[in-house]
């Protein structure tokens, strides 16, 4: 009895100072709509799960990783061979990045197709697009850190791409590389991006993103709204959270199984003077862009092929970011056409990816 009294006393002490009970009350009243497409609601928290795994395994790897020209490749080799269970930690970190980015793509595409970004959720979408690019930047910077010949070539190409943007492009390339060329300075810089700059950005944008979702509640698909009936709802706590936990357990199981049976390789240390090895390839999520750069001819009319690819890419990114504003009549023909574009994009990206693997 006395113990309970103490617990209650502590709670009211804390609540008086923090106002935490407001948040608990909000959580206990929050509901999640139930319909044919509710499965997509689970992708968001699954991304958070993978992000948490990245943070924890990242903390662990940074204890042994050495971000210098001389030491990087060797320190990763040491993690893989000497550090107890180091190979599993690196493997999980490497695989989890792929899993996370795959889910980010699925999450955004599902929102595009169900038009969950329509008014008043435009800002949620835009913050989500930012999070996609921060995630891709994490993947891109992390790919260099093992400092082997594949990662060096991928980084040379990736950091050279902005150069084609007229005006600011050269400066972007210099900023990313820490100079004219990819060198040891680039490695140090990428390490800085990967472990300090990007995490701060990601957490800040994530806070905005999650706040907006809580403020507006879950979006429901247009088709379900049109039925006009009152939708079935599930309490967020504990019913929905328990279901999410089941999803997390399954995904963690898959992740660890893949990580244990297919650990990533480590090639020999990068040599700045050596020719690019054959069969270089970026991470799978950049393959469709990689293939585009490969097939575009040197000159189209009088523009450089890669300048054109980069400008098209930029245009695509801008359109993607402002999608909720472009798609302002979701129920009319324009809205349906924009949904078709989502499917066309999936087919296009898949086809280019397969082509690049042939």
């Amino acid at each position: 009895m006395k113990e309970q009294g103490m617990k209650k006393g502590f709670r009211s002490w804390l609540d008086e100072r923090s106002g935490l009970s407001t948040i608990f009350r909000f959580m206990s009243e929050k509901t999640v709509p139930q319909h044919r497409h509710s499965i997509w609601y689970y992708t968001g928290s699954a991304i958070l799960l993978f992000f948490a795994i990245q943070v924890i395994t990242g903390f662990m790897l940074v204890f042994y990783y050495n971000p210098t020209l001389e030491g990087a490749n060797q320190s990763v080799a040491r993690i893989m061979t000497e550090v107890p269970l180091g190979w599993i930690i690196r493997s999980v970190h490497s695989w989890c990045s792929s899993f996370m980015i795959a889910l980010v793509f699925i999450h955004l595409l599902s929102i595009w197709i169900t038009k969950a970004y329509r008014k008043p959720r435009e800002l949620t979408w835009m913050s989500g697009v930012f999070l996609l690019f921060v995630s891709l930047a994490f993947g891109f910077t992390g790919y260099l850190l093992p400092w082997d010949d594949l990662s060096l070539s991928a980084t040379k190409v990736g950091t050279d791409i902005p150069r084609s943007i007229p005006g600011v492009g050269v400066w972007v390339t210099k900023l990313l590389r820490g100079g004219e060329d990819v060198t040891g300075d680039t490695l140090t810089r990428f390490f800085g991006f990967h472990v300090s700059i990007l995490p701060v950005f990601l957490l800040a944008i994530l806070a905005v993103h999650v706040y907006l979702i809580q403020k507006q509640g879950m979006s429901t698909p247009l088709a379900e709204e049109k039925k006009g009936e009152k939708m079935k709802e599930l309490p967020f706590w504990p019913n929905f959270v328990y279901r999410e936990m089941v999803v997390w357990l399954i995904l963690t199981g898959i992740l660890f199984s893949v990580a244990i049976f297919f650990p990533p390789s480590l090639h020999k240390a990068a040599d700045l003077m050596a020719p690019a090895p054959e069969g270089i390839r970026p991470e799978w999520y950049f393959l469709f862009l990689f293939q585009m750069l490969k097939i575009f001819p040197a000159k189209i009319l009088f523009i450089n092929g890669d300048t054109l690819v980069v400008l098209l890419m930029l245009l695509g990114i801008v359109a993607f970011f402002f999608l909720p504003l472009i798609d302002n009549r979701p129920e009319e023909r324009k809205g349906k056409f924009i949904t078709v574009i989502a499917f066309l994009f999936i087919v296009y990206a898949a086809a280019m990816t397969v082509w690049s693997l042939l």
Partner: protein
Amino acid sequence: MRIKHSLFTRRQFLNGLLGGWLGALAVSLLYPVFKFVFPPTREPDQVTLPFSDFKDMKPNTVENFPWGSKPGLIKKNDDGSYTAFVGVCTHLDCNVTYLPEQRKFFCACHDGWYDQDGIHIGGPPPRPLRRLNLSIEGEDLVIKREGVE
């Protein structure tokens, strides 16, 4: 409040003054940040190598040398002359390799091809390989950036 014949009110004037001052302060703080993140370029004007290292090269072969942080390539031509290139693909900056049997330079990143004179002949490269001026001065092989005297 506006004085007679004045173009703006006192409030507008003070806001402009304060805003301009804050803007100038921001620029003066951002400028060093901007300068800091761009290190000076490190491409050398000239590199001197001992000629003895390259005297015995066979025709139609290529040797590497460090051109700053880029790979430089010295090619011995069939007539015994030498040509120097920056061994970096003009498409997206990958290091190229010379394939003597085919008499071509090759970039593995996106399938770029150059002929033995460094002229782009296939794939995405938009320009020929960059050439460097090479001269033999006594015991030395002197390699200069184009335009450097």
